Each structure stands twice: as structure tokens, then as C-alpha cells.
């Protein structure tokens, strides 16, 4: 009884140690029985991916994309943010074809910046496009035109968009990963994701025609139809006052289509878009 302190230490040590051993054995058994095997290649692929979770691939994030690539559900080139080297690395790791990536970029379907589009009123208030659009259309006479307050800029994680001197957003196609956030941010639906190779861009969405359209904006599409005459028959067609390329006929078009456009609304765009009054083809 004199050794009570020592005995109680021993008892508690034994009890705690015993409990530890028992639960340790349980955990070890559970680890064996309940183990889920995961393909180590998923981690390897995820390591190479940019990790920005931009969502442009259509999956929930980079991890989910990695799982799908390893399963073979998507080719590595679906990721629009990876460099070509990185895509090759993923393809090499998995021993699959890298796939053909179609380089896409956001394009603005309006060229009516400050000084070109008629301004009916000046908007004062919250400095976002979405708020301005709700107040009598934000002061710009054309209700289809770009409001120029840059809602598309902060949502772009790649810093690919900047306002030009006429307060229109210019997208850098090299930096754009076609994630589509700017498309959602624009209250007027003026940004469109399209393959960079589709160089013909109608920089106007006005449903008006002729002088009515011109009264609102110097660079509006007046639906005159000259581009349609100059294109191969049926390749371009007029829909709601705007020329639209018929399905699958992009390859037949050439820069000549834009040559006679009286306002410069239809452009052959290589690289960044330009929103000047007249295209260089006409000025030359």
C-alpha cells in the first residue's frame, strides 16, 4: 500500500497503453479492409495542371479534370490554360494522344465605343454595367451596345481583358483561356467564345437596319448585305439584321468579305480586336 503512487502510475500507464494498442490494431485492420485504391496517375496529372479551377474544361475543377483525363473521358488538350509542353507531358505520362486543341477566345460583338455610338444621356450611379443597363439602358442610345463600365474585367482571372481608349473591352486572345466568365458577366451578352481561327467577326448586335441603325451608331451593321454578296453563295446569311456564318462554312470565307462594308462593322480579326472608326482595308 506504501507504493500506491507508483502502482497507480503503472495502472494508468498499462490501461492507456492497452487502449492504444487495441485501437491501433483496429485502425490497422480498418486500413486494410476499407482501403480505397486511387490511381497514382491522378495525383501526377493534377500536379501538372495549372490548379486554377477555372472550369473552362467543363469539369468541376482541376482535380475532377485530372480524374477524367486518367479515365480517358477527356483528352489532355481540353484544358485551355496548359501550355503545349504541359499537355505533351500529361499525354506522355498517360501514354494517350494529346488531342487537337481548338484555341478559343472571347470576342466582343460591338465596336460602338465613345465618340462612335450616340450617347443620349449620361449615366451617374453605381459603376457596373449590370446596374447601368437597368437605368434606361445606361445612356447609350443603342440598347444592344457595350456599356463600357467593365463588368467583364474583374471576373477575368487571366487578366486578358482591358478597356481601350473608347471604353470597349479588348480581349488578348493569347492570354484568354475561354473560361466563359466574362460571357456570363456581360448584361448584354456581347462577349462570345469562338475559335480564334474563325476570324470573321461582326462587331455589332443591333437588330435595326439602314439609317435607323446608323442614327444610333457610326459603326453599326446596317444589314446592307454587301458582305453576303461577296461571300460564296449561302455561306453568310442575314439573321435579325446581322450577317451570320452558315453552319460548317467557316473555311470558305476570306478577308474579301469585309472589303465593301460601309461602316466597318464586319471585320477580319487576327489577334486582338480593333474598334476604330474604319478598318484599314477600306482606308487603304
Amino acid at each position, binding site marked *: 500500500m506504501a507504493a500506491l503512487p507508483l502502482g497507480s502510475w503503472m495502472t494508468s500507464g498499462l490501461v492507456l497503453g492497452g487502449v492504444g494498442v487495441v485501437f491501433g490494431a483496429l485502425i490497422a485492420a480498418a486500413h486494410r479492409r476499407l482501403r480505397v485504391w486511387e490511381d497514382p496517375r491522378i495525383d501526377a496529372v493534377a500536379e501538372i495542371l495549372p490548379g486554377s479551377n477555372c472550369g473552362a474544361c467543363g469539369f468541376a475543377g482541376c482535380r475532377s479534370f485530372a480524374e477524367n483525363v486518367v479515365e480517358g473521358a477527356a483528352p489532355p488538350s481540353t484544358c485551355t490554360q496548359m501550355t503545349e509542353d504541359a499537355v505533351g507531358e500529361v499525354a506522355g505520362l498517360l501514354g494517350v494522344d494529346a488531342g487537337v486543341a481548338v484555341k478559343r477566345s472571347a470576342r466582343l460583338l460591338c465596336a460602338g465605343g465613345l465618340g462612335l455610338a450616340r450617347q*443620349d*444621356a449620361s449615366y*451617374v*450611379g*453605381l459603376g*457596373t454595367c*449590370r*446596374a447601368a*443597363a*437597368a*437605368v*434606361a*439602358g*445606361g*445612356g447609350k*442610345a443603342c*440598347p444592344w451596345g457595350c456599356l463600357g463600365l467593365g463588368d467583364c474585367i474583374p471576373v477575368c482571372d487571366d487578366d486578358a481583358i482591358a478597356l481601350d481608349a473608347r471604353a470597349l473591352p479588348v480581349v488578348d486572345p493569347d492570354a484568354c483561356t475561354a473560361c466563359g466568365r466574362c460571357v456570363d458577366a456581360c448584361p448584354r451578352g456581347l462577349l462570345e467564345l469562338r475559335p480564334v481561327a474563325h476570324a470573321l467577326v461582326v462587331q455589332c448586335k443591333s*437588330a*435595326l437596319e439602314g439609317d435607323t441603325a446608323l442614327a444610333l451608331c457610326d459603326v453599326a451593321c446596317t444589314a446592307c448585305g454587301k458582305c453576303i454578296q461577296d461571300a460564296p453563295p449561302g455561306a453568310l446569311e442575314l439573321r435579325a439584321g446581322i450577317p451570320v456564318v452558315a453552319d460548317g462554312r467557316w473555311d470558305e470565307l476570306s478577308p474579301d468579305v469585309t472589303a465593301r462594308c460601309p461602316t466597318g462593322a464586319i471585320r477580319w480579326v487576327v489577334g486582338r480586336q480593333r474598334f476604330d472608326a474604319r478598318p484599314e482595308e477600306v482606308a487603304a
Partner: protein
Amino acid sequence: MRSVFRFRHGVHPPDRKGLTAALPVRRLPYPDELVLPLQQHAGRPAKLVARVGDRVERGDVLAVADGHVSVPVHASAAGTVTDTGLWPHPSGAWEPAVRLAVDAHSAQAARPRLVPHWEELSPAEIIGAIQDAGLVGLGGAAFPMHVKLQPPEGTRLDALLVNGCECEPYLTTDHRTMVDHPRRVQLGVRILMHCLGVRRAVIAVERNKPDAIEALTATLPDDLDVSVLPLHVKYPQGAEKMLVKAVTGREIPSGKLPLHAGVLVQNVASLATVAEVFETGLPLVERIVTVTGGGVVHPANVVVPVGTKLKDLFAACGGLRDDVAEIVMGGPMMGTSVGNLDAPVLKGTTGLLALRAHEVRHEPARPCIRCGHCLDACPVFLNPQRLGTLAQASRVPDMADMHLKDCMLCGCCSYVCPSHIPLSQLFAAARAELRRKESAA
């Protein structure tokens, strides 16, 4: 002691009604051209039936109702249809509209038609006639009246509440309707009581319109239980929920209509128009509009054909002064700015304000100082301070959890905010965003 006829919270903006309150309603000469958009009411736009080149008489149908929550659009003058394309709408967009070249030599008499005796009609027939006449609520929201008159099965209505509050500053449309046409208002009440089968009607008028209260009291019918109830002067007394609370003491639950409190609310101008429809047979082709503000040379209450272009309207009121800073359609608290004076007067246009620079205060927004004034002002007991913070962070789903949908955009919070935060505009934008997300989902 708290008066029974009150709601809690709200604000007391200067009413500025003196510019036009004493001016009787006058009629303007017909303009050369009228523009009638197909979308003038809440609900689906009307379906065009007129064709370019058609010669129409005043009151002829240009577009028919498309479905239940829709009303037809009628020619508001005799003339020729010149175009059915797009035209600037007060909302800022270009919408399909009928352009009518007014016949300068026409007497503008309606095409002779049979005016039915409403006493002999069944409620369903009256409601049908109201839809055919293109009637909408004339208080501003322009909700089709026939829809409101058909409460769902099992709803028990015990009273008709007539809204003559006109709590928006500047506007005197309803005020002049009550003073100049009290008998029409009473006839409208009579017709709707017959149609709804209710025994009691209360005409609620803010106490700042003693002449309207007097005119209505003098014309009260002997055989029906109709009374005039003077109410406390406070904004937004004329909002349905506030009005029902003030008059009956019943609170309308979130997301519910006045019907759930057993009352139906109609605006006085709408009732006067109901009476006119059954007196003359003419559909809704004209309305009373208050043209006011410091920027108008001769402020006035005028009867204009629906579809009058704003520039013609201002020109008929002496024109605009040079220092006009903003044009607002509706009242200064809930109205919307207009950017294009080619846009026409709609069925729901209560007034037009041309405000000079000193009447419009543009101050840059400063950070919230958490003074809580907005909480004391909000008539639906939301927390605008918290909602504003969430809106600035684009956290729309969180705003929905804080009952953003109960906000009626009355503007009280913006009005009292000492930091000039455009709260109500933030909420309007957030609500549009929420609707977009819900329709996408």
C-alpha cells in the same frame, strides 16, 4: 398613443406636390404621331394584329391579349398605321411598337359601339369586358386588372380597398382624379363591389389631400357601405402591404398578396377608368399624367392619349428649361430615369418629372458608417445595411436568404442613407441577377 391607421417605419420626403396640386386636369391637342408599344403591362406582350397601312378609328384593337396575363392594345387616336417595327421604350430597350400617324382632320370620336349596362352583366362578363378594354392598374405597376379581379378559389374577400394615397412626391394624378372626377371613382367602386361580391369598400386617402377627401365624402353612395378613410401622411403609404396594414391592421405574409388578408386593393385612377369604360364603351386609350418638376416651363395635369411621345408631351407643357438634369418617368422615389424623349407615355405612366440640377443630388457613395437609419426606414423590416454589404460583394444567394425578394424597391433606405449608398439600386440589380440565375437553373 399609436393611431390605428399607421404602418411602422417609412420616411417623410418633402412632397413638392404644390406645383400641380391645384391645377385642374386639362386636355392636350392630339400630336401628329403616336407610338404604342406591345409591352405596356406586366405579363406577356400583346400580339400584333394591325398591319402597316391600316386605317384605324380611336379605340380599335391594334394588338390582342396573348394568354391570360396579358391585355390588348388599342389605337388611342384615329389614324393610319405607318410602322410595326422597333421603337425606343421607356425601359431603354427598343421594343416592338405600332406607330400611328394621327388623322389631323378626324373628330377623334370612337367608333359607335353598344355600351352594355353593367348592372345586367355577370361578374365573369364584367371581368371579360375589363380585359377587352385593356385595363391595367394605373398606379404604376400596370398589372392587368382582370387577373387581380379573379382571386383563386377559396379566397374570402371582405372588402375592397381603394388606394388614393399617392404617397410619391410630385405626383398629383390620383389627387386630381379624385377632385375632378369623384363620381367616376364612386361608380368604379360600385361596379367592382358588384363584380367581386364584397359588402364593404374603403377609400384610403392621405390627409394632405383635404379637397379630395371632401369631394369623395360628398359623393358617397347611400345604399352601399363605402367610407373615406383619411390616413397619416408617410411614404410609402400607397404600397399595397403598407396600406393593408394601416387600414386593417392585418399583416400580409412574405411572398403573399393582399388577397391573403381578405382585401383587394385598386388604385383610384384605375377605378375611374373602369367607370369610363362602362359609361362610354371606350377602352383604355388615354390617361391622366402629371408633368412636373422645376425643369418644365408650365407644370400641368394633363389627359393624354397613351402613346404620346415624351418630347411632344413636354413641348405641350411649355417645353423644357435649359438646365434640366434628369427626366424621370413615375415618381422620384420609385420612378426610372428616361434617356430618350422619343419614348412614349405608357398605360402605367403616372407622371413625368423634369428635374433641374438642384432637385437631383448626385453624391459619391461613401463607406457605410453603420448608423442604422436604413433599418429604421425599411417598411418591410429588412436589414438594408447588411444586404448592401452583401450586394457590394456580389453575394446574391446570401441576399436571397435575407429576404431580398420582400424588398419592393421603395427607396426609403437610399433616401435616408447619410453615406449616399445607392442601396435600392444595388437591390434592384441583385434582384435582376437572382431572376437571371433562377431562370437559368
